[in-house]
């Protein structure tokens, strides 16, 4: 195998090891690569900043699973931190995956350790089966969920006082590893609520039309959005700490793509030269 063939057939194990090394170095020794704030992320921040801690309650639909990794988890962590910092109460529920309540509990456990009160500052209503129909049912009657994950009656929770329909929430945000079309179809358009979404990076391009049409008031996508959100909040967290490594990873991928293409064009030219002879 000559050099041109080797360029096109780099052993994937070499790519993985180079990636692991390249990502590990900036994680351990951050470089501080500057980043720009995306308007879609800023829109979510502005909505949360505009909420009134005295009366506004936020609904979070936690529809991501552990398999989606940190790409899905950093956005809700950043937004919940902002909500708690501003003293805004929130309620979580899951429609998209049975793992949602478990992922919410991961956030809640940390908050309780820091002195926040379950039931007063936040609550986890658990998983409601039925997908799109369940979303519609909950939107029309939030007390259709009889108990939360801890067995408390939903109507008795201090954070749920005054909540009857989804319109009683000042802001609704879904965090998922997919797209929020079900929410847009069943709740956002028919009921006209303020709705934003936080999803994994892969899904962001398909959500831009909904943001441009105003159906989504804001979009957060993966680690980069979470990092931007943390910067906006002046609280750099896990998202921000990963951005240097993420940028280095992109450079490595670009390097290997360029390498493969150089090999492709060189081999094409060699074949053409041979054919001409």
């Amino acid at each position: 195998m000559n050099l041109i063939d080797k360029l096109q057939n780099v052993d994937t194990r070499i790519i993985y090891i180079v990636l692991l090394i390249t990502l590990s170095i900036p994680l351990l020794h951050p470089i501080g690569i500057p980043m720009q704030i995306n308007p879609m992320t800023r829109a979510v921040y502005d909505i949360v900043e505009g909420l009134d801690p005295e009366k506004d309650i936020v609904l979070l639909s936690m529809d991501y699973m552990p398999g989606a990794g940190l790409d899905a988890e950093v956005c809700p962590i950043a937004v919940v931190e902002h909500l708690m910092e501003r003293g805004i109460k929130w309620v979580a529920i899951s429609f998209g995956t049975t793992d949602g309540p478990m992922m919410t509990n991961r956030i809640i456990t940390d908050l309780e350790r820091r002195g926040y009160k379950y039931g007063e500052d936040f609550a986890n209503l658990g998983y409601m089966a039925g997908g799109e129909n369940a979303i519609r049912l909950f939107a029309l009657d939030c007390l259709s969920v009889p108990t939360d994950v801890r067995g408390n009656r939903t109507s008795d929770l201090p954070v749920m006082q005054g909540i009857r329909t989804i319109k009683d929430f000042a802001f609704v945000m879904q965090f998922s590893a997919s797209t929020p079309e079900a929410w847009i179809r069943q709740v956002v358009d028919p009921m006209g609520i303020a709705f934003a979404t936080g999803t994994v990076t892969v899904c962001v391009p398909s959500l831009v039309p909904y943001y441009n049409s105003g159906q989504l008031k804001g979009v957060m996508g993966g680690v980069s959005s979470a990092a931007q959100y943390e910067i906006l909040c002046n609280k750099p967290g896990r998202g921000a700490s990963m951005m240097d490594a993420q940028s280095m990873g992109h450079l490595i991928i670009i390097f290997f793509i360029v390498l493969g293409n150089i090999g492709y064009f060189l081999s094409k030219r060699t074949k053409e030269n041979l054919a001409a002879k």
Partner: protein
Amino acid sequence: MQISTNIWQWISVACIFGMWSLPLYKDNPFYRVCQNIFVGSCAGHAIGIAVGNMVKYGFQPVIQQSQLHLIIPIVLGILLYARFFPSVAWLSRWSVAFLVGVGVGQAIYSSLRSQVINQAVAAMTKFPGETLGTTVNNLISIIGLLAVLTYFLFTIPQTRFVKGFSQLGRWLMMVTFGVGFGNVVSGRLSVLLGELLKIFQDWLGLI
């Protein structure tokens, strides 16, 4: 460096190394064990939540609050399992018919409104826009929309002008696919970074 003393962190990191052993080495028993732990724990958790849901939304309201109308969906749910018994398999069609009917009924009207009409309205941009930048953006948006739609016009002959315009649509789609691929790479890197953070931060305490 402060290595975690939490046994779950050790198990978690061992599973990460187990999963990595497939691409970095080859299929091996360690990988299989980790894979089975993942599949088993996911399935167990999903079953637990599903049973909890049946109790919370089905049996408890019927028994404790006498909401007898809930017996109908419970019976329809049980009928789904009739398909495993050939003599009464036809009964499961009632439940499927109900599910399909409700699903289609919910989706048809709302999809048309949210994903066709509202998107079409949003595509009707103001021209000229408030600023030069907005005007250019709107122009790109509307030309892009028409070009991509032209690419999928199969009922008119692809004459010189139409062919050129549909080629533009094809190029715009290629750019979109490129953006999509870039996001996939970025997303996968984020997942890997999450695992590295777990190793360096939660397990080894290096960060």
